[in-house]
């Protein structure tokens, strides 16, 4: 039974990581932008959700408002700034790095330096018995939400026109453009959607992991580990990477506590040696 709980923990944590890493991976896959602002999208999304939750008491509204707000901010950053440096990786990365700091200070100014925690939605504020143990219902909810979003994204990518265009753009943006796909709009959409996903992750994670100055950096590092393990630019990779990292992190901390500081990084190093492109990466 204890194994079941460890695996569930790992999967729940992995699902959160997936929400954050999926956008990062897609944005890199399509635009070759290493978006360091992604950590800010996560943290800001969480903070916005927290404020909405405090004002309205509605968790669903918190999720939606955060996703829309961060989606718009993402779109604006892509349109107004990143666009000017298309395929110019260093200026783009530095630009997103700059935004990361600006947002970090902005968050400190708006929400202060104390760690803040979102209230767990009332319905999920209980645990379900699991043998002699009890397991938090909210974590099961996280697993369900993560699975639905992963399934939705997969369906979108494989079975919609926009998804096909997206795959075409990832494979070869220039040919896609030559075929009449409006890559420009696609870029903005994907960037905004990636940002919204990260903010979704931020709101969902806030009742468990809390929001604090520096959570943006911490999360960004984890998201990078996930997409390096899973392979850049692949949704499947992000999912596999997130679950693998989540589960290994949990088991590592449980059974090799003296290595708790690098349970996440050891698997990454091993995978980089065995498969330099990650589990599902190409080239």
């Amino acid at each position, binding site marked *: 039974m204890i194994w079941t709980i460890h695996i569930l923990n790992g999967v729940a944590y992995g699902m959160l990581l997936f929400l954050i890493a999926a956008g990062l991976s897609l944005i890199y896959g399509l635009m070759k932008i290493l978006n360091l602002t992604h950590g800010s999208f996560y943290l800001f999304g969480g903070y916005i959700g927290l404020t909405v939750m405090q004002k309205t008491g509605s968790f669903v509204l918190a999720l939606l408002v955060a996703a829309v707000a961060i989606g718009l901010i993402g779109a604006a950053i892509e349109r107004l700034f990143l666009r000017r440096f298309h395929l110019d990786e260093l200026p783009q990365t530095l630009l997103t790095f700059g935004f990361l700091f600006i947002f970090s200070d902005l968050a400190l100014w708006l929400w202060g330096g104390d760690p803040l925690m979102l209230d767990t939605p009332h319905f999920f504020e209980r645990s379900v018995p699991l043998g002699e143990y009890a397991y938090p219902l909210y974590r099961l909810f996280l697993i369900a939400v993560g699975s639905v979003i992963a399934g939705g994204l997969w369906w979108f990518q494989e079975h919609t026109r926009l998804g096909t265009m997206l795959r075409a753009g990832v494979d070869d943006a220039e040919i896609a453009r030559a075929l009449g796909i409006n890559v420009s709009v696609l870029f903005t959409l994907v960037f905004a959607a990636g940002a919204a996903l990260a903010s979704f992750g931020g709101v969902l994670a806030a009742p468990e992991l809390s929001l*604090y100055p520096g959570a943006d950096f911490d999360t960004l590092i984890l998201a990078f580990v996930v997409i390096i393990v899973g392979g850049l630019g692949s949704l499947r990779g992000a999912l596999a990477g997130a679950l693998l990292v989540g589960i290994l992190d949990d088991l590592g901390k449980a059974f090799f506590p003296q290595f708790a500081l690098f349970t996440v990084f050891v698997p990454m190093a091993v995978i980089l040696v065995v498969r330099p492109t990650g589990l599902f990466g190409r080239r």
Partner: protein
Amino acid sequence: MTLRNETDSGARRARVEGRVGARRHALGAIATAAGAAVVTLALIVPALPAPDAGPIKIGVLVPLTGNFAAPGQQTLAGLKIYFDGIGNKAGGHPLELIVEDTQGNPEVAVTKTRKLVERDGVQVLTGIVSSAVALAVSDYSRTNQVPLVLSGDAATDELTMPGKLANPYLVRLTENSRTPSAVAADFAYKTKGWRTATVITSDYVAGVDLAFAFAQRFCQLGGKVTQAQYPPLDTGDYGPYLTNLDRTANAMVVFTPGAAGLKLGRQFAEFGLKGKLPELDLFGTLTYESYLPQLGDAALGAYSALIYTPYLNTALNKSFVAEFRKRTGNQATNEGPSGWTGAHAIADAIDAVKGDLSDKTKFMGALRTAKFDTPKGSISLDKDGMVVQSMYIREVQKVGAELGNVPIATYHDIGQYWPYSETEFQSFAHTYNDSKDKLTDCAWLLAKK
């Protein structure tokens, strides 16, 4: 306090906001420059000291941004409440506070210390929350013979014990790491009758120190730590630790500062452990007043040991708590009264030397005779400049509409070696330094040299 300090609170705020930008990076430089411009303007406002009674400048080193911002603000508020209460005058001189943000970072703190001492000419340093900052600034204080009055936290045991880190120019009016733990062990064994405990403590020097002090005293009384887990400070998911938790133990003993305490407290309740395993918080970190409202009912019933609780029933404390809330809007935590106490000690010592701080030995001697009542109880100093004070066991209860750490037991006259004498303390063969995988081994913990 002179005109400059009275009028520049807005400027200081601007400066602090400017500093936020400079924290880890160059891009904030613009913001800092803007802040610096404001400060420069503020500096032009002339101070108006009488020529024969110039102000005595006191350098306040507190983290106002970063992870330690909350305790830093608490310390500063406590210092100001006392100094304002005596009209910012001591020994016939006006007092001038110059506040610098250490950001909780030792390197930044040393730079700021240099600035305070070498450019601003401060004669006493005070404040300091982080132990790492305290160690760095204490080095400077020892080398340059600048009196340092710790009034934030800075709980590293060795700072006031004879040895390599001892500093004749330092006194501490806050607390050290080990005594709240020793008191907690006493309470656990004698009052609660617990015989076994499972320990979760954040994996850094203070956490290891606190866990060791608890385990050692608990063993000596006849108890035993059955399991010790050391999650990294930035752990997000405590699931693995809580799943592995030894549920047969009588209690869970924790030290998890900042966001760590918030996460652990909440997840502990979520995993259905609340009510099954009592929580004993070694330093009031999980039950830190600033975070209690967020923990909500998950915190109810948690015990903690610390030098203060805002619910102490003395006139002095009641007026302090009221004034604190009026100024900051917040409940006072332990740093507020420690700031107040530090300020009191400084002012008394300045009075004793009649405002002449040139003789450092005389001034330090005056500081070390401190003995007075404070919001946290009456205090005095031992021969090494460490405060002797009361320690409280608190329990999180509903007080009206809010949650509070209500005192349920008091331990009087707790010195830094409590419950041992200095000789007995020094006679133990092992210190916390290499105790991490030995916490369940009573023979090792109690071995003598």
